[in-house]
């Protein structure tokens, strides 16, 4: 009985999330066609979508799988660099921008998934902060490699070199990835519509995963690994599966994000970006996908909305961030909102999982 109640509530939340995304799309489209959308808002639409996808995909790792990852931007980077390379290479043969964008995102997702598996196999054996630091390390390694990678394309095909540019391209060739110069002359084919579609696909994938047998196994591992193991759940397999899906989605988001700008460097996807995405997840609530999307959108807009503070902008941003964390975790406020709920067990601080919707679905 209780089970069906909670799962109905979960379903309701899922539909509400889809609805929110579609409503956002509708409002923006109407505003745009009536000319009420400022340039700054227009410019931020694709990043908002990309960051939302990043937040939802990281929430899969942090909220559902219960592992702290500090290198999520690394997957974004892999997606951005491989996806753009594919889109540029395709540019000579296919003129349709949506097709190139789609191929770019798919290629980005595939490569990020491959990297996800390669990283996941060793990393997921570790626990807690050790896992966190290893993901951070991988993020930095990926950044280091892309900062030294040269990929060129000419009539003879791809030329790849590391450390120094020895691609020796034909005169008609283009250097797609130029080491520290990063991605040069990216086709800016990302659109708001494609961003919303990617976000919806992400939500479908994540919700289906969470509500499936796999998802329940993953959450069982999060809540008690030993108990899950004892009832015959293959811990490594399910962990790896969730981690890889999360990486693939981040790769697609990275590809979308990069194709919104003419230029992109590996340093963009550093530790700070990983942390930024983690902030979205924590602020939105672990396991709460709608919260992730709202937090990602709000925190992308916030620094721009604070521009009138001029030099005090980032200071105010920091204060707001601290205050929001204090407010959302304030026991008085919390108990005010959860007065009706009887189960407010104090959480074990060692447990990264947090009381939330996702957990209740188990």
């Amino acid at each position, binding site marked *: 009985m209780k089970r069906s109640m909670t799962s109905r509530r979960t379903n309701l939340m899922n539909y509400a999330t889809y609805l929110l995304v579609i409503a956002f799309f509708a409002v923006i489209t109407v505003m745009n066609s009536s000319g009420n959308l400022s*340039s*700054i808002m227009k410019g931020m639409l694709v990043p908002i979508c990309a960051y939302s996808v990043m937040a939802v995909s990281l929430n899969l790792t942090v909220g559902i799988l219960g592992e702290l990852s500090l290198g999520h931007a690394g997957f974004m980077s892999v997606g951005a660099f491989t996806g753009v390379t594919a889109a540029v290479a395709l540019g000579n043969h296919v003129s349709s921008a949506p097709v190139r964008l789609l191929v770019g995102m798919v290629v980005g997702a595939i490569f990020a998934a491959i990297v996800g598996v390669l990283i996941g196999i060793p990393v997921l054996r570790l626990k807690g902060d050790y896992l966190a630091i290893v993901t951070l390390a991988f993020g930095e390694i990926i950044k280091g490699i892309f900062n*030294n990678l040269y990929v060129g394309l000419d009539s003879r095909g791809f030329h790849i070199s590391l450390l120094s540019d020895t691609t020796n391209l034909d005169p008609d060739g283009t250097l797609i990835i130029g080491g520290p110069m990063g991605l040069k002359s990216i086709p800016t084919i990302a659109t708001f519509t494609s961003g919303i579609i990617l976000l919806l696909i992400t939500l479908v994938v994540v919700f289906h995963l969470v509500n499936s047998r796999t998802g329940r196994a993953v959450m069982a591992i999060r809540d008690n690994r030993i108990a899950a193991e004892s009832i015959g759940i293959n811990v490594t397999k399910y962990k790896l599966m969730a981690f890889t899906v999360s990486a693939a989605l981040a790769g697609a988001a990275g590809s979308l994000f990069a194709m919104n*700008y003419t230029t992109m460097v590996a340093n963009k996807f550093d530790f700070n970006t990983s942390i930024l995405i983690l902030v979205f997840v924590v602020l939105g609530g672990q396991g709460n996908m709608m919260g992730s999307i709202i937090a990602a959108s709000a925190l992308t807009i916030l620094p721009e909305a604070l521009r009138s503070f001029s030099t005090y902008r980032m200071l105010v941003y920091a204060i707001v961030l601290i205050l929001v964390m204090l407010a959302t975790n304030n026991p008085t406020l919390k108990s005010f909102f959860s007065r009706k709920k009887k189960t407010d067990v104090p959480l074990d601080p060692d447990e990264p999982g947090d009381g939330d919707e996702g957990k209740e679905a188990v």
Partner: protein
Amino acid sequence: MKKLLSLTLALLMVLSLAACGGGTAETTEEAEGTETTEAAEATETTTATGDAFKIGGTGPLTGPAAIYGNAAKNGAQIAVDEINALGGDIQFDLRYEDDTHDAEKAVNAYNTLKDWGMQISLSSVTSKPAEATSVLNMQDRIFGLTPSASSVATIDGKDNVYQMCFMDPNQGTASAQYIAEQSLGTKIAVIWKNDDVYSKGIHDTFLTEAADRGLEIVSDTTFADGNDTDFSAQLADAQTKGADLVFLPMYYQPASLILAQATGMGYAPKWFGVDGMDGILTMEGFDPSLAEGVMLLTPFNADSDNEATQSFVAKYKEQFGEIPNQFAADGYDCIYAIYQALTNASATPDMDAATLNDLLIEQFSSMTFDGLTGESMTWTDGAVSKDPKGMVIQDGAYVGMD
């Protein structure tokens, strides 16, 4: 659910905070706001009415690169104040937005300025952001003159984006030529920053030109963000390979560390820097003896006897408490170059950005400009042509090398 509720509450707080802070700025913008969107619909350009030209620029005002953005902004502000004080027909309204040295944030900053009604753009201060915003300058037909974004890609393929600084490859070539012509060194080491467009651009052309001129590069080492404090390995490599000249295509902050560490190791080769090295002497607490004998190619010299430079330096010191570096001088020159072009074209502030764009392209492709960072500057395809001055640091001051 409770989490969501409390989050919503928190966000409301955030937005109300942003709203009250934004109050004053928004009301003034409202008047233009409606007009701007109308114009944007019709011609994709921005119009502004008023008696001052709206000039906007983006640069890193916070974060690790904040020093460059703030310098350019302050320099430009001094020029604007001077021109406005003249009370002539041309008045400026300058607004700088923070891009934290990041392409994504630069696009946001640019769009904010566009919504404000920017008529003329100072592009971006640093190269990577400028590569992203200059495309928008081109699309929106808003003229851009960057004080210091020196990469080729900033101006490449854009008819309305101009540079006030040297282009990176020119600096690399000029440095190698200078070293070869003056026979400054036989074995050369290069230390460069391999995640920086500026450093990479100079390094690559320097190596090419050095090979053509028969200079021997014995050591070629790098550093990167987050790895820019300890240079003992790079210096030891140069030292053991017997380099007698070390070329430092980088900004002055890491350069000051390299000089200090080399002194600590007892390694004293000749040092050769580029325009980013300018500013090293003005760092608070810097021991000028460390930089004794350092050579650099720079367009600006804060110690110059030039009257205009001296007045600029004095004003800068008075307002901002620091000695201006090359970025500040570039920002100052940008405003005066635009001022000269607008005067020549008899432009008025009620013209829209597209009209001004065409007028400025016409002026900049034909005019000659004398500024703090060079005399008789001219522009071709957006790139400036001016002579770099070879300087050597002696007793804590620049001295012309030839």
